[in-house]
């Protein structure tokens, strides 16, 4: 099985252990954390049948929106985008109303989503891809190939990071948005899943913890 075309690259990329700063949750009613995003104040966490917003300073849940929430979550400054089944719902976070829906690029194989530069970036889990799509139509603008399962996507300071989760191994990795080449890797502890990834725009990543029902804060390496 040829599953690792760029493994030589990833082996050479600087690798260090992820520094987990804090854990939040598990959240009530969560079988599984499916996606995370950040609105400047709250961390929004998709947990199946709703998205809850907690304050990262104290971990307390302050808001919650009932909606189908199966995978990645993103925030464009006004609306939440939430992957449910094979579509992406655009949700008004104040009312929970779905204002629009577009097809998800992976046709249901989607996992992980980020908002950046007017586009949505959507991970396609087992197909090891990241799609840049038009948030109004769902049209695919371009596709980046990774060499690992993609379970979360985020942009911070012009860096594209994605979550990797394959069995017992998971990591956060920075890749070249053009070539897909791996530039940097943060290895999560053995047995920790990464489902959903978001940066707070500063020094922290928030990672969904899959069936643990937790969200973990991981320090972003200083530049």
């Amino acid at each position, binding site marked *: 099985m040829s599953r690792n075309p760029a493994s030589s690259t990833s082996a050479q990329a600087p690798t260090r252990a992820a520094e987990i700063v804090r854990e939040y949750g598990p959240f009530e009613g969560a*079988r599984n954390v*499916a996606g995370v995003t950040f609105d400047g104040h709250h961390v929004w966490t998709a947990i199946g049948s709703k998205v809850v917003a907690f304050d990262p300073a104290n971990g307390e849940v302050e808001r919650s929106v009932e909606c189908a929430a*199966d995978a990645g979550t993103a925030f464009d400054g006004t609306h939440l985008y939430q992957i*449910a089944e094979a579509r992406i719902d655009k949700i008004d976070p104040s009312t929970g109303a779905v204002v629009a829906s577009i097809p*998800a690029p992976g046709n249901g194989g989607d996992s992980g989503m980020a908002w950046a530069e007017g586009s949505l970036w959507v991970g396609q889990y087992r197909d090891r891809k990241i799609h840049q799509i038009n948030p109004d139509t769902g049209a695919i603008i371009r596709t980046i190939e990774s060499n690992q399962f993609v379970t979360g996507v985020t942009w911070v300071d012009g860096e594209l990071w994605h979550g990797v989760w394959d*069995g*017992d191994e998971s990591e956060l990795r920075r890749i070249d948005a053009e070539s897909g080449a791996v530039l940097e890797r943060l290895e999560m502890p053995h*047995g920790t899943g990464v489902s959903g990834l978001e940066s707070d725009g500063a020094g922290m990543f928030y990672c969904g913890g*899959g069936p643990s029902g937790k969200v973990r804060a991981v320090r972003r390496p200083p530049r």
Partner: protein
Amino acid sequence: MDSLIAAAGRALVAGDALGALKRVALRDDPPALALRGIAMAQLGEYPRARELLRRAARGFGTREALARARCVVAGAEVALAMRDLGGSPRALAEAATALDARGDRANALQARLIAVRRLLLLGRLDEASAALVGLDAKGLPPSLAAITELATAELALRSLRTADARSALDRAFAAAQRAAIPALLAEVTEARAALDRAAARRIHAGHEEPLRLEQIEALMGSDVLVVDACRRGLRAGDVWVPLARRPILFALLRALAENWPGDVERNALIARVFRTRQPDETHRARLRVEVGRLRSLVAPLLDIQASARGFTLVPTDDRGVVVLVPPIDGEQASLLALLADGAAWSTSALALALGDSQRTVQRALAELEAAGQVRSIGRARAQRWLAPPLVGFTTTLLLPAALPPE
């Protein structure tokens, strides 16, 4: 986990197997195959479910050991429901170890319970009992606690410890109520009802009386001498004299016990034990020999004394004598009574115990099997016969526990 897998998993946990299938029907990646397999199993499509789960297990890479182990467990559960007991238990044991190593205690326990139930169905009670010891369902889903208690009850019933069985079933009932799985609750309720049905009859001084398992256990625990025509032997408290392989001697003992404290006339004994209406001197000589053999086998418990016209039982210590017979008459009832110990019997051993030809026994077994009252495993000379499980726990697929939230 991707979005459709998550959505299908949500549907499955809510009991909507068709809704789950609809979401992943066209996908062939390993998580989708696993979900399709579990949904198919819940719809009763066992062969298809096994095939899908096998493909899913193969498809998960070596790095995805957890997901792979869950598929193995789900596949084993389906095999059990199909009563396919031929597979090697090693893959299941390895899956349990892999699950334990990754902190998935619930699925590890489920794997081990499947192994115990398999041993119970194979009639390997000692191994099942050993495997059951040390299984701990504390803090795990109540459905697993219910299954653990059902297996405990089955083992207790097979060895006629009805008080143990009843308390295990009480715990199973409480757990099944917490689990709120209707099929599981129905099974526990049925098993409890079985405890209250007549399991044998007592013949004492010419009178017959139906007995429930608890009454049988009490009888076995008393100091009465029990001539047990269900399991073919003589029991006195903890002492068990098996006579299943000595059908003539057992027939003799039973005839004498049924008439106790009176005696039985020689020709009547000959007619019954040797099945002949024209006794001659050779039969009388043979009767003396058989009485002598029986006397030495049952020696410290009772004596067999010659009377003017025949023989009579004389228990030591003034004990009473009762005869226990199957709840209804006939060949089939006798077979079922023998199989009630839960062990695997060969046709020849059953024929020997009943004193019938193998052909007769085979015919009766075939009828019972067609009626679902006995099961067989193996083929030809290796074929063995078993009673169906007292508690039908295998109809409850606990597959949602094997569902991978990765």
